[in-house]
């Protein structure tokens, strides 16, 4: 925790975040990154779940790099928050749950591209996704919506007054 804070202070992140508009500006970027992810990966998931049949899944998948860009933006902006006030995050049950959901989403991505992406890529415009791909899509959507919920709840818990019960 001290290493994080020290890094933030040495690199100037801490001063930037605590400047007049630093924190709200980074929060805004964090929300724009989230919107990129939902608008690309989220809609691809919805297509696999059966919405918007007629759009070839392989064609829709071309939007996904924009979602990855949004994800990268959010990892960076997220790190700026956490390193500038680590005590508010590391002991926060909402933040811990958020990380756990991100880990599940990450494993889900690996499983999806290893085992399910090929048939999805080859499926016709009006086709349904195979069952496994539908499960992966539902896990992905559920995790990312859960991540938004947890992100919002971080400010609901203000450690050290709300320590998590499992740590």
């Amino acid at each position, binding site marked *: 925790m001290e290493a994080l804070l020290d890094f933030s202070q040495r690199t100037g992140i801490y001063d930037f975040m605590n400047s007049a508009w630093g924190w709200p500006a980074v929060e805004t970027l964090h929300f724009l990154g989230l919107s990129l992810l939902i608008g690309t990966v989220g809609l691809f998931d919805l297509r696999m779940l059966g919405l*918007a049949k007629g*759009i*070839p899944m392989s064609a829709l998948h071309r*939007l996904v790099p*924009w979602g990855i860009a949004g994800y990268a933006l959010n990892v960076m902006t997220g790190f700026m928050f956490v390193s500038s006030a680590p005590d508010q995050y590391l002991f926060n049950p909402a933040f811990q749950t958020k990380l756990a959901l991100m880990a599940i989403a990450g494993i889900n991505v690996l499983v999806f591209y290893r085992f399910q992406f090929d048939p999805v890529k080859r499926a016709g415009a009006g086709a349904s996704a195979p069952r496994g791909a539908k499960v992966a899509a539902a896990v992905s959507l559920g995790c990312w919506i859960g991540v938004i919920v947890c992100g919002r709840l971080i400010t609901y818990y203000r450690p050290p007054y709300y320590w998590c019960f499992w740590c």
Partner: protein
Amino acid sequence: MDYLLWLEETPFSTWMRESGPAFFSSLIFHSIGMGFVVGVHVAINLRILGVAPRIPLSLMRRFFPVLWVGLVVVFLSGALLLIAYPAKALTNPVFYLKLTAVLGALFITRSLAKGVLQDPGYDAGRAPRGARVLAALSLMLWAGAVTSGRLLAYTYNILMASHQY
């Protein structure tokens, strides 16, 4: 200011403020709804701008149901947040900026929905220049709406009409 005072003293407004879950669940629904509303616009506008050109453009309308649900959630949860702290937003110019950006962007979406998004003639490749300009403008307006929405938590002068000094 009188009607703001009246509104914030209604039992419902007081409950929205004082019950933690009521206020926080409104915030959460507002964030998720906004994520989907902006997200669908990101996808449609990127496609109009030429990204993912193999998506038949007119079929992007099939994501409109997501947009409708998102908009209902956003407006309902937004109204609840407004009822909780009416003076906070209504006395802040940034709130009207956000409203203008959202309505402007939705107006563009309506005109695109009646134009390139319903003409299968534009299904393949890049959309015409006019539509691309509107799509870029829409993305900027949504970025503006998100920015002003986030700033609402930082720029207010009055939190409650009854607590001005």
